[in-house]
C-alpha cells in the first residue's frame, strides 16, 4: 500500500499518511498536535478544512460534522482518511521562529569518530554534495546497513558548519543501530541520512533568559543551539544544566567551560546523579531538575526552557519548572525515545505538547 502525502497549512509541513490511517493519527505520529477529544467522530473538536485533495469522512457523526460543513470542505481529522494527496488547514500554532526547510537525502563520509565516554561516540560526517540547511536543535534520520528503519539523531553542531553533521550516539544495550555505530562503523564509511526534521528550536522571538536542561546525549541539540546563539551574538542569559550519572559519563566539559569563560552570559552546570560519595567531583550532584531548581533559586518564571533527554528526566523537569511557575507555553521538549519507551503513560487532555 502506498502512502499518500498530506500537506498541513499554515506551516507547510508534509507528512505521509498510510492507507486507512486517519489524518489525526498521521499528524500525531508525526509530532504535529491537532486539537482533538473523543477520537471517534462524535465531538467535532478536531474539525479541519481540506483545501485540496479527496478524502473519505469515515464515521463522522452528522451532528459533529454537518452537511453544509462537508460541502465547505470540512472534515473530522479523527475519522477522515485520504483518497488522494491532500492539503489541510489545521488549527496549529504558527511558529514564527520555525523556518520551512525541505527534507533532503544526504550521504556523509565518516570523517572522525571520537570516544566521548565509555558508551558515547561522536561521529562527524562530511557531507558529499550540496551542504545541509538546518536549524539548531533539529535532527536527521540515519539509515544503516542491515538495520530496519531509520533512527533519529540530533545534530550537535551549529548550522554555520553546513558541510558537516556531528552526531553523539550512546550505545543502547541490545540496540541494533547504536550497536552498529559502536562496533562496525569506521572512518571512510559512507552513511545515508535524511533531514532536517523536528520542531525543537530556539524561539528567538521570545527574548528573555534561556534555560537548557539536558540528560546524557540529550546535550547534543542544546550544544548546537547554544553554539548558534553565541555565534549570533545573543546577549540573553543562557544556562545549561547537563546531567549524567558519574564523571565517567560526562563529556564536552572542557568545551563548555571555555565557552562560559569567554561569554559571561553563558553558565555551564554539569550535574552528576550517581557520583560516588567522597569522590573528587567539585560540581553539582543530583538529578537535572533538582540542580536546575538549586541554580535558579526555584523560580523559573520569565525563562524559556528547552528540555532534551530521556522521558523520566523530561517529566521530572516539567514538574519542577511548573512548580517554579514556568508553564507549557514556555517549555519546549525533545524526548529521546528508545524502543523500550513505547508504552507511555495515559495522557489527559490537560496539556497539548508536554
Amino acid at each position: 500500500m502506498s502512502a499518500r502525502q498530506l500537506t498541513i497549512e499554515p506551516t507547510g509541513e508534509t507528512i505521509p499518511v498510510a492507507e486507512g490511517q486517519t489524518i489525526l493519527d498521521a499528524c500525531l505520529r508525526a509530532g504535529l498536535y491537532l486539537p482533538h477529544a473523543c477520537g471517534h467522530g462524535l465531538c467535532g473538536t478536531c474539525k479541519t478544512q481540506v483545501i485540496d485533495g479527496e478524502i473519505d469522512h469515515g464515521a463522522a457523526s452528522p451532528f459533529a460534522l454537518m452537511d453544509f460543513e462537508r460541502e465547505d470542505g470540512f472534515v473530522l481529522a479523527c475519522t477522515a482518511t485520504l483518497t488522494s494527496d491532500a492539503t489541510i488547514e489545521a488549527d496549529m500554532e504558527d511558529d514564527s521562529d520555525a523556518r520551512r526547510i525541505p527534507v533532503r537525502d544526504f550521504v556523509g563520509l565518516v570523517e572522525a569518530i571520537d570516544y566521548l565516554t565509555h558508551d558515547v561516540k561522536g561521529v562527524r560526517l562530511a557531507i558529499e554534495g550540496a551542504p545541509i540547511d538546518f536549524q539548531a536543535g533539529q535532527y536527521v534520520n540515519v539509515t544503516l546497513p542491515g538495520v530496519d528503519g531509520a533512527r533519529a539523531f540530533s545534530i550537535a553542531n551549529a548550522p554555520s558548519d553546513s558541510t558537516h553533521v556531528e552526531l553523539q550516539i550512546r550505545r543502547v544495550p541490545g540496540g541494533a543501530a547504536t550497536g552498529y555505530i559502536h562496533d562496525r562503523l569506521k572512518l571512510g564509511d559512507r552513511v545515508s541520512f535524511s533531514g532536517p526534521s523536528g520542531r525543537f528550536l530556539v524561539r528567538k522571538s521570545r527574548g528573555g533568559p534561556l534555560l537548557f536542561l539536558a540528560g546524557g546525549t540529550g546535550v547534543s541539540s542544546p550544544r548546537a543551539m547554544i553554539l548558534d546563539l553565541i555565534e549570533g551574538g545573543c546577549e540573553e542569559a543562557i544556562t545549561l544544566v547537563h546531567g549524567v550519572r558519574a564523571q565517567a559519563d560526562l563529556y564536552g566539559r572542557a568545551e563548555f567551560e571555555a565557552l562560559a569563560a569567554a561569554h559571561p552570559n553563558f553558565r555551564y552546570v554539569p550535574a552528576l546523579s550517581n557520583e560516588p560519595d567522597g569522590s573528587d567531583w567539585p560540581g553539582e550532584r543530583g538529578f537535572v531538575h533538582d540542580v536546575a531548581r538549586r541554580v535558579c533559586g526555584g523560580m523559573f518564571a520569565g525563562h524559556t526552557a528547552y528540555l532534551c533527554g530521556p522521558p523520566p528526566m523530561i517529566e521530572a523537569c516539567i514538574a519542577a519548572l511548573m512548580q517554579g511557575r514556568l508553564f507549557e507555553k514556555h517549555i519546549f521538549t525533545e524526548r529521546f525515545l528508545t524502543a523500550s519507551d513505547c508504552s507511555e503513560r495515559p495522557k489527559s487532555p490537560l496539556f497539548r505538547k508536554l
Partner: protein
Amino acid sequence: MTAKKLGLKQRYAHMTRGLDWETTYQPMDKVFPYDTFEGIKIRDWSQWEDPFRLTMDAYWKFQAEKERKLYAVLDAFAQNNGQTNLSDGRYVNVVKLFLTGISPEEYQAHRGFAFAGRHLRGVGPRVAAQMQSLDELRHVQTQIHTISHYNKYFDGIGEFPHMHDRVWYLSVPKSFFDDARTAGPFEYMIAIGFAFEYLLTNLLFVPFMSGAAYNGDMSTVTFGFSAQSDESRHMTLGIEVIKFLLEQHPDNLPIVQKWVDKWFWRGHRMLGLVAMMMDYMLPKKVMSWKEAWDIYFTEAGGSLFQDLARYGLKVPKYADVATAEAEHISHQNWAVFYQYTHAAAFHTWMPDKEHLDWLSEKYPNTFDKYYRPRWEMWAQMEKDGKRFYNMALPQLCNTCQIPMAYTEPGDPTTIAFRESRFNGDTYHFCSDGCKDIFDGEPEKFAQSWLPVHQIFQGACGGPTVPDVLNWYRLNNGADNLDYVGSPDEKLWNQWMAGAVKAAG
C-alpha cells in the same frame, strides 16, 4: 508579493479584537464587582487561550442545523410510535428521572454560565461562558421536547418544573446547582465547568445515553449525539479554567484545591442517582456503576490528576472513599427509593432473579453478602401481601440533602452519622465529605432548604402523605408506587398484547 496567510488563531484574534475594551464611564471594578472577593488573583486576562475560536454567527448557523436534524428524528420517532419499541415499560422511569432530575439543572447551568459570562472580566472566558450558557438553554429545551412525547403516554413527567422546586429527592440536584450558582464566578467555573462538566460528565451522560441506546429510546440517543458536540467544548472550557487559575498566581492553588475537593464530593453524591439508574432501572444493562466508575473516574481521572500534580494540585480529598462506595451506593439508593416509593414520581420494583444474578456477578464483594438477602426478603414480603413502605420521614444530610442511609467507610452494616455545631444548632451529615463542606461555609449551608424539615415546619401543604403529594403535584396512585400495578404497566401490557396479536 502576497501577504502571508494568517493562521486560524490570528484570524480569530483579528475578528474579535477590541471586545475587551476598558470601560470609561464607570471604573472596571464597578462594572465587574464579583471577580475579586473569592481571593482568586488574575495577573493578566490576556493569557487566556481561547480554545474554541468560534464566532457567534458560526455558532448560530451550526446549532440551527443541528437542531433541524434532531427535530427530524424526534418527528420520525413520534410518527412511528417509537415508544412501543422500548425494551420494557420500566425503562420510561429512567426518562422520568432524567427529565425531573437532570433537565432542570441544564437550565440552572444556563443561568450560572450567563452569570459567569457577565462577571468575569476577561474576554476569552466571557465569550466561552456565554456560548455555554446558550448551549445549556438549548439542551433543556431539546430535552423537554424529546421527552414531551413520552408525556402523552406515561405518568410522572408533566409537572417536572414544579416538582423540581419541591420534591424531596429532587432537592439533591437542585441544591447542588443552587450552591454553585450562589457562589462567585470563579467557584462556579470550577464547580460546574471543571468538576462537573469535565471530571464527572462522562459518568452522567454516557450511562443515560448508552442506556437509551440499549433500550430502544432512539429519541434520547439522538439528543445525546446532538449534545455531545457541545459537551466537548464544555470539557475544554473546564480544562482551560483550571489551568488558567493555577498558572495566574500561586495563591490560587489552595483556593482551587478546596473547590475541587468540595465539588468532587458534591458531584459524587449527586451521581448516586445515576448509579441507581444504571444498576436497577435499565431493563437492558449497559455496565455496572462500579465498572463505569473504574473507567471514567479511576482511569481517566487518574491520568488527569497525574497531570494536574505538576501544578501541585492533589487528587480530591475522599476520592478513595468515593471509589470504595462505588461497591455500595447504587444498592443503598435503590433501597431508599423502594421504601419511599409512595413519595416518588417514578416507579420502583424488586429485581427479578436474572437481574439479581447480574448484580451478584457485577458486585462479587458486596452484593450477595449485604444486599441480595434484603431484596429477597422484600420480594417475599410483597408476595405475602406485606409490601414494605417506610412511613417515617428520614433524616437528611444537611449538605447533599440525601436521606441518611449511607454506611460507614469499611463497615456496610452501620449507618454513618456526622454532626457539627453552628450558632447553637446541631447539623447532621451523611459523611466526612459532606461535613467538611458544611464546616467550610457554615453560614451558607445553615440556610439549606431541607424537604423533611420543611414538611415538619408545615411549609409543604400539610402533615399527611397525601397532603404533601398534593403539594408536590404528584398524582397519587399513578405517578408513584411500584411499576407492577401502575397505569404505565397496564398501558405497556396492552401495547405488547396488541403487538402480539398484530404479529400473530
